[in-house]
Each structure stands twice: as C-alpha cells, then as structure tokens.
C-alpha cells in the first residue's frame, strides 16, 4: 500500500509539467496541423475551416515554394557537414591535445559565442561581410580581390552565417563524447601497441560517435527552421523556408498556407534525419563487417562475434 502511494506520488509530482507541455506545446502544434487543412476565404480573414482539404499542401508543392524548400535543405546539409568538418578536429584538439588545466578555460571561451545573442552575432557578420567593410578593404589592399567584396545578401553569406551560428552546438557534444573516451583508454591503446592513427580510428572516433550524431541533430534541426540568419544576411537571393512561413503569418495573413508550410517543414526535417540515421546505421554495419574480417585475421577467433556496437571495437583496440 505504501508502495503504490509512493509511485502515485511520484507521477503526481510531474502533473504540472505534463499540463504545461500539453497546453502550451502539444495543443498549439495540433492546432497548426488542423489549420493546414483549411483555406483563406478573403483578404481580411486569416483562415476558415468549413471546407477541409489538402489543397494547401498542393500549393506548397508548387515550384516556387519547393525551390526554397530545396535551397533550405541544401544550406542545412552543407552547413551541418561543414560544422562537422570544422568541429571534429577542433573538439579532438580540445579534448585530447590541450593541457587539462587549460581545458576548462578554453571550453568556457567556446561557450561565449554560444550564449551571445544569436541576432547580434549575425549582425557582426553583416558588418564584416559588407562591401565597404574592413574585410573587403583588407582583401582588396593585399590584392586578393579586384573590387569590393560581393557576398553580403547572397546564399554564400547565409551559408557562412549558419555555419558560424551553429558551430558551438556541434563542438560541445563532440567535446563531451571525446572527453568521455578518456586519456586512460587512449593510453591503454597506445601501450598495447596501437599507433596514433589506429588509436584515433579505433578508440577515439568510435567513442565519439554518439557525440557526432547528437551534434548533427543539434545543428541540422534548428538550422532547417532558422530564419533570422537568412533575414539578416540573405536578402532576396538567400531566403529560407522559415521566412516563407513567417511571411504567411506576418504579412500575407494566410494562416492555412503558413501552417501547411510549417507541417511540410517538420516532415522534411524528420525525413532527412531518418534518412541520415539509416545511412549512419548502414555505415556502422559496413564498418563493423570490415573490422570483423580485420580482427579475425590477426586475433583470436572468439572475438569475431563479440563486436556488436561501437564500444566493442573500442574494447578490442584496448585489449589486444
């Protein structure tokens, strides 16, 4: 009896949290999905729900909208990959090469841009990339540029901006994962005769895989919905889906179409994440198959069946 009361008490403690999530997140988002089946009856009404249809989705699929969707997807994928390429060596350096007593300070420095106002950081890039700005002048004076820098208000500027804005979100989980791999494990691997590269590819990187996955998610998902960066740096050429959605609510006052766009955005995002996750699993499977052969070739046969996850490879690297 006391047990049942305690369990009920624990769940009851979370009721306010439940209520809040349901009332101010689930219900509003459900309302958006509901609006997406409606239509805009006249210039003064935002939506009407007396005739339900998929017509708004058909509207979203028209070439003008679809091209922005695809451009957004491209900016997000390229941005995530660039963040990963910049972030992996950086996080590795921070977690492995930097002296431990300095590590906390450098880590705190990575947090500074992370917690500086997003919009203000983007404004910084607007100043840097301006045709009459100092970067432009510098590049011209050393002869790298013939005329003023011409990338502000283009897709390139948006790409630079998003890589900058989301890079800390990639670095931090990568660092946590590589830090967890630990100096002891790497030393063990080295003591047991594994070279530097072998330690990197068989101990540190496999241990960092969860960090890579969560870093990619943390960058890709908000990037798909970003519209601040594109509004500040993109101009007419570099617009993203977020701006389209926002303009339907702010200027066009067409909630039905805006809702449909938002739903398509969520579906696009989740589909891309699912696809990447599938590819990742496939890559891991292939990687393990390859290493299974590698392991059986020069090790005891009983270890062949043992490698189930990334950690199994690690133990092998360390135990040989």
């Amino acid at each position: 009896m006391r047990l049942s009361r305690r369990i009920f008490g624990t769940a009851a403690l979370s009721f306010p949290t439940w209520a809040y999530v349901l009332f101010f997140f689930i219900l509003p988002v459900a309302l958006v999905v509901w609006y997406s089946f409606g239509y805009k009856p006249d210039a003064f009404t935002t939506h009407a729900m007396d005739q339900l249809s998929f017509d708004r989705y058909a509207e979203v699929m028209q070439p003008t909208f679809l091209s922005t969707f695809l451009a957004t997807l491209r900016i997000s994928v390229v941005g995530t990959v660039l963040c990963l390429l910049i972030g992996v060596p950086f996080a590795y350096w921070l977690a492995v090469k930097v002296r431990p007593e300095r590590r906390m300070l450098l880590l705190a420095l990575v947090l500074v841009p992370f917690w500086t106002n997003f919009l203000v950081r983007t404004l910084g890039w607007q100043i840097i990339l301006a045709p009459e700005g100092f970067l432009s002048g510098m590049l011209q004076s050393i002869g790298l540029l013939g005329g003023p820098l011409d990338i502000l208000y283009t897709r390139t500027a948006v790409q630079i901006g998003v890589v900058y804005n989301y890079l800390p979100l990639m670095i931090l989980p990568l660092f946590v994962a590589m830090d967890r791999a630990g100096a002891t494990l790497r030393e063990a691997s080295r003591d047991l005769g594994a070279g530097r590269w072998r330690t990197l590819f068989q101990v540190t990187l496999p241990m960092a895989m969860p960090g890579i996955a969560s870093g990619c998610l943390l960058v890709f998902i908000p990037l798909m919905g970003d519209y601040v960066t594109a509004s500040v740096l993109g101009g007419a050429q570099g617009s993203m889906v977020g701006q389209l959605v926002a303009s339907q609510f702010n200027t066009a006052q067409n909630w039905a179409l805006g809702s449909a766009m938002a739903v398509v955005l969520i579906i696009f995002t989740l589909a891309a994440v699912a696809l990447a996750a599938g590819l990742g699993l496939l890559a891991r499977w292939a990687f393990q198959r390859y290493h299974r052969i590698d392991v059986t070739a020069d090790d005891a046969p009983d270890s062949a069946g043992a490698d189930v996850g990334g950690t199994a490879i690690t133990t092998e690297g360390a135990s040989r």
Partner: protein
Amino acid sequence: MSAPAHRRARGRDLPARLLGVWGVIVFAFLFLPILVIVMYSFNTGRLLAAWHGFGFDAYASALGNDVITGAVITSLQAALGTALLASALGTLGGIALARARPRALWAAALTFLLAFTLVTPEIVDGIALLPWFVTLGVDGGLAPFNNGMVRLVIAHTAISMATVTFVVRARLAGMDRRLEEAAADLYASPLQRFKDITLPLAWPGIAAGGLLAFTLSLDNTIVASFIQQPGYTPWPVYIFSMVRVSLRPEVAAISTVMLVLTLLALALVGYVLRRSGESAGGVVKTFTGG
C-alpha cells in the same frame, strides 16, 4: 605511421601542431563577429556599419532612449518571469523523472515530449503559439492571454522548461535514495522530506536551470517576434525590426552591455555547478541542455 615515442610524449609533432593551429583559427572565427560588435559599439557615426570615429556617444544616447531602455527592461522582466516559472515546473518534472521507476511509461512519455519541444524549430513554436493565444485571449475571452508580458513568459517557459527539467533530473540522478527513505522511516511527512532532503540536494540544478532559462528567454528572437504585443517589445525583437530599417551604433552598445551581463550570469552558473562537484564535461552538458 607512428612517431618515435619520446616525441609523441612531448606532443610537439607536426599533426599536433597543425591541430593547435586549427584550434586558434576556429577560436578566431568564433570570436570575430563578437569583437566586431564590441568594437563598433564605440562608433560615433550615425550608422552601425559605417565607421566614423571612436567615442562613447552610442552608450550615452542608448541609455537616454526610452524605446531602447523600455525594450531591455521588457526583456529582463520576461526573462525573470520565465526563470521563475520554468524553474518551478522544471523542478517538479525533474524530481519526478529522477524518482521514476526505470520502466515507468509516464516517465518515458514525458521525456519524449520534452525532448520533442527541444528539437522543434522555434519558428514552429512561434506560429503555433500565436493562433493559440488569439484563440484563448480574443475568441475565448481569457484576457490575460492578450497581455504581452504574460504571452512572453508563457512562450519562453514552453521552450526552456525542458532544459530545466533535464538539468534537475541529471542533478538528482546520482542522488542517494536512502536519504529520503531514512527520512521517511524517521516519520518525516512527504512535505518535510521534499523541503529538507530533496530540495537542498536538487538546488544547484534548479539554480543552474533557472539561470539557463533566463538566458534562453533573453536570447529569444523568433518566438517573441510572433507573439509580441504593442508596448511589450523585447530587446531582440526591437533589434530585428531595426535590421529592416537602419541599424545604429546604440544596438551594438546595448548588446555589449548585455553580453557582459550574460557572461557574468554564466560564470555564476559554472561556479555553482563546479562547487556542487560537477565535472567539466557535466557542466558543458548542462549548458547544452542535454
């Protein structure tokens, strides 16, 4: 493939050096726009991006501008309200999740929903809450939902509550259950146990989570720009509206002041977490909300 051992031990070989150079480059990249904003806050010209001369004019005129100070005050009030509401809800949720049985269905469902709020693009939160507030306040006649400050606090709590919940849960995950059981055996009432045992144990997580909610609210542009009401324009939304008109150095001046304040708040969070025995990695995980 492997360098001689003595060189490797000193860590001064070529790959290590290249990594060090890369680290410096990335840090320069990370700090470039922030330094530019701080530098241009001393611009005496009329336009932010056009450098004119060095001076403190922007700081003086920003502090004398009622619209700007009003926006900053609105932001701070909303952030304070968000911190209080999100900490209260997040503390209850975090304690409940930390205490839940390993396979409790409600705990898994709540974790999933909260994680879902974390991965939802902010634009979706914004466009979802705008019609919702209109439905409740205008169509439903619930007047508080028409108040700009109430809207800001509710919306910012919705996006930051999950972070507080997870921070508190992480803080209590390693807690010794026997402390509560001992208190129960000694006839402490549930309320006493909560007040004297659980809360003191959870408080570093609550404080850190509350400060995180504060900064998240202060940073938020997208959701606030949708749900804002006249008279309650928060600071980032003010800047965003100025981007389309013309940016003046005042924006950089106030941003520099806010940056300094945010850094002080974060240093405080880091200090609290470190004092409560969190590892460096744990502090970072806390800051990223995971």
